[in-house]
């Protein structure tokens, strides 16, 4: 087999993996802070992207559009906290999980009802098909950009978590709700922050994915890709999300290229899940997640 | 309140020899010896974090001590799957009520008899023949327990609607449904008012008397412990500091210190 080809696939995998991480981050944020597995993250990505692209199409300046979209995501976060989370506070997590499935449907419906369900081209002025050459391997330029954006985002987030008041607050909540409360942090505001942040991450992811695939319903399905990423990386770890993304990314690409052929291809749909399953069986809390201990 | 019959008191049901148990770094139990005699009521007491619960879990077999041996009826007990503990004849109640909230009191207790039932999916689907009969057979048994615990009036109430005291009683009923030889009660009177406690004491004693069940209980209420138990073992920081009749233990200096120490 050709080494450079391998490299190409590998790096390609890594880069697309980063894209997954981008979505996965949204999940991690919310899970970290509230223990909720937010199934609606995908829908949020779709919603953000749609809003963004439609506003652009109206011919508004990019920055304004960005600002507005952010505003919308904030409102969405607040609405969710008020309508969904507050009434369900200290319910079973599984109930909350199902609620987010409902939320997912709602947002998907809303997004397409408010805007529409056509495919919209989102051009960030990066040529899809220009590629670097490293040795004999071709690396897609766009992917590199995406990777950079994702990397940047992760950096920002970790800084945010480490150095801002809210960030620390979030960490506190993540570690122990009681503790957080006793320190006098209102859980609800926290949740709003978390969901807002998640919303913004979704926006970024949406833009990136949107410009790759075009903004369309399919984007929300990306979330399903992100789930195995989480399982592998661990629900509670930001770096986990990244590493998980990378593993899934190149895992599925390599599998596709080197195994897919034998089994009729298109295995990247389920391969990550199988990967995730294996991880689950060996290490339920994921590679980077905190161990879950049950007392009798 | 103490009961009279001293029958086969000193044949041992369980014999625990210098058991050590530790979670990661911290030691929960250190070289603990403990005998459980058939037919007695043994209370394990001690300040918070003294390792009482750990001890109970070692007895029940949920925790496997790193060092030391546990003999059950003279045989050294190997590691057992949690769901086989009940089959060995050990039943327990939990410190904070662990009832099946979705079911009625009756069903909760009936579930306690599941292991005594035969499973035949198809007959159960049709509710026919043997499976129907066994349902009825075991219902009879359960009704005896209900009668014994005087909870006829709440037989068909969902347990989630019951007051705390009654829930505790139902949980006891569920444990009894297993017809255990050894019954472990994890703070059976925690959070009860005076009457509820008195009732519970009565039931514990009656169980021990009528079914000759051996009972090991953890309890904070000293009055209760001294009243109902034949023997008291005192743990402090994972070490057994006393073991004897209530009176002996009461006068034990170490015990007094431990309790004063723990405030």
């Amino acid at each position, binding site marked *: 087999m050709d080494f450079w080809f391998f490299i190409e696939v590998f790096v390609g995998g890594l880069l697309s993996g980063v894209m997954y991480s981008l979505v996965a981050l949204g999940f991690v944020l919310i899970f970290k802070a509230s223990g909720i597995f937010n199934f609606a993250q995908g829908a949020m990505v779709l919603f953000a992207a749609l809003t963004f692209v439609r506003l652009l199409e109206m011919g508004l300046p990019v920055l304004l559009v960005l600002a507005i979209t952010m505003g919308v995501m904030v409102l969405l976060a607040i609405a969710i906290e008020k309508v969904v989370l507050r009434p369900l506070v200290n319910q079973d997590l599984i109930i909350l999980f199902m609620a987010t499935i409902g939320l997912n449907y709602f947002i998907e419906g809303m997004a397409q009802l408010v805007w529409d369900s056509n495919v919209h081209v989102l051009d960030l002025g990066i040529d899809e098909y220009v590629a670097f050459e490293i040795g004999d391997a071709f690396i897609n330029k766009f992917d590199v950009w995406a990777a950079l954006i994702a990397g940047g985002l992760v950096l920002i987030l970790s800084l945010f978590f480490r150095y801002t008041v809210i960030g620390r607050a979030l960490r506190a909540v993540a570690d122990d709700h009681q503790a957080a409360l006793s320190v006098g942090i209102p859980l609800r505001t926290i949740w709003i922050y978390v969901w807002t942040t998640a919303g913004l991450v979704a926006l970024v992811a949406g833009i990136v994915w949107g410009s790759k695939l075009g903004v369309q319903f399919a984007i929300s399905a990306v979330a399903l890709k992100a789930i195995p990423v989480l399982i592998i990386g661990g629900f509670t770890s930001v770096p986990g999300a990244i590493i998980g993304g990378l593993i899934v990314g190149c895992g599925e690409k390599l599998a596709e290229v080197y195994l897919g052929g034998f089994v009729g291809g298109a295995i990247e749909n389920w391969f990550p899940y199988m990967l995730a399953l294996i991880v689950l069986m060996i290490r339920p809390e994921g590679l980077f997640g905190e161990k879950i201990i049950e007392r009798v | 309140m103490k009961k009279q019959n001293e029958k086969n008191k000193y044949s041992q049901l369980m014999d625990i020899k210098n058991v050590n148990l530790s979670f990661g770094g911290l030691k929960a139990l250190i070289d603990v010896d403990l005998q459980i005699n058939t037919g007695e009521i043994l209370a394990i007491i001690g300040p918070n974090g003294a390792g009482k619960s750990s001890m109970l879990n070692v007895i029940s077999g949920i925790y496997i001590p790193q060092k030391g041996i546990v003999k059950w009826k003279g045989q050294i007990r190997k590691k057992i799957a949690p769901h086989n503990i009940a089959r060995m004849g050990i039943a327990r109640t939990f410190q904070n009520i662990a009832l099946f909230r979705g079911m009625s009191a009756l069903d909760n207790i009936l579930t306690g008899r599941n292991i005594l039932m035969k499973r035949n999916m198809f007959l*159960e689907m*049709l509710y026919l023949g043997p*499976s129907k009969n066994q349902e009825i057979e075991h219902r009879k048994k359960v009704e005896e327990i209900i009668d014994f615990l005087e909870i006829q009036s709440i037989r068909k109430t969902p347990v989630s609607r019951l007051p705390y005291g009654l829930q505790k009683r139902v949980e006891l009923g569920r444990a009894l449904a297993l017809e255990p030889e050894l019954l472990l009660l994890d703070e059976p009177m925690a959070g009860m008012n005076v009457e509820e406690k008195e009732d519970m004491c009565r039931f514990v004693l009656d169980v021990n008397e009528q079914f000759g069940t051996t009972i090991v209980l953890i309890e904070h209420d000293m009055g209760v412990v001294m009243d109902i138990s034949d023997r008291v073992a005192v743990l402090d920081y994972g070490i057994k500091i006393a073991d004897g009749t209530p009176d002996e233990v009461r006068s034990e200096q170490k015990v007094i210190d431990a309790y004063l120490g723990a405030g």
Partner: protein
Amino acid sequence: MIYREAGQFKTTYKSDQAILPIFQDRIAMVLMLLFAFIIIPIFANDYWLGSILIPFLALSLAALGLNVLTGYAGQISLGSAAFMAVGAFAAFNLQVRVPEVPFLIAFLWGGSCSAAVGIIFGLPSLRIKGFYLAVATLAAQFFIEWLFTHFDWFTNYSTSGVITAPPMQLFGFAIDNPLNKYFLVLSIVALCAFGVRNLARSEIGRAFMAVRDMDIAAEAIGINLMKTKLLAFGISSFLCGLAGALWAYVVLGTVEPQAFDIARSFEILFMIVIGGLGSVSGAFLGAGFMILLPILLNNIGSVITGAAISTETIAHIEYMVFGAFIIFFLIVEPNGLARLWQLGKEKLRLWPFPY
């Protein structure tokens, strides 16, 4: 208000543990069956039978299956559709390979295969809980969908990748018109519902609920978690598989794997959430709700706007409404319509007293 229980005393456990201990309930049940088996066939037209009642029943069965797993045994699954697919394709393949097999046998075979697959994908449930498990079942969803799409063997190498159900013969009697099909589906579903109800009130059902409500305690009283959970997966998948077979044979006739995509899985999950977790009636109520709501919306829409709205818009509104309802029920009444029904019944029994 209609209840007159005074004087309905039980002198045997048999009668006390009867499936419907209250006389008035027995009456109601009889009436319902009469309605389903006699009144409907007389009055319903082919449209109603073909595109509402039969799909409703088939999906009810799937929901019933999922309810066994999620509602009774408390193990959440997002792969119900996949298990339906297994049922459908297994049944189809058996009949294709061994034509002389009667379709009922094929159905059972489909259910059994599905059960087997279900058990395999249920294995993770021994180590993981909640949405971790949900993820595992998602894996099933994607894997199986892919399997049937990419291995022509399953579709008997049909170029279009769809399977076409062979005609159904029962004792030389062709089941080809909506009415016959209706009777067929109705009987099967009724039977299954009866079975599940019985299961729920006997030893296995209690084991399921014990595991659902408090697994530690369940273990402490000697219930083998592994066996119980796997059994739940088995039974659940069997029913889903059967439903899948019905979906393929009776509802659609020709199916492609995409008929059992993740959206279907969610649809079924919604049915039991809205209908009511852990109750047989819940499956039916939920299914009815999910089937009728779109039709309702459509009509309302056309009434309001005068002209019929684009199917697309309707679809989107559906999404929102379903989503909203899920959240609503989870907040207001986690036990769904069935619970509301129960409460109503309680009120009737207490009437005129408030409690």
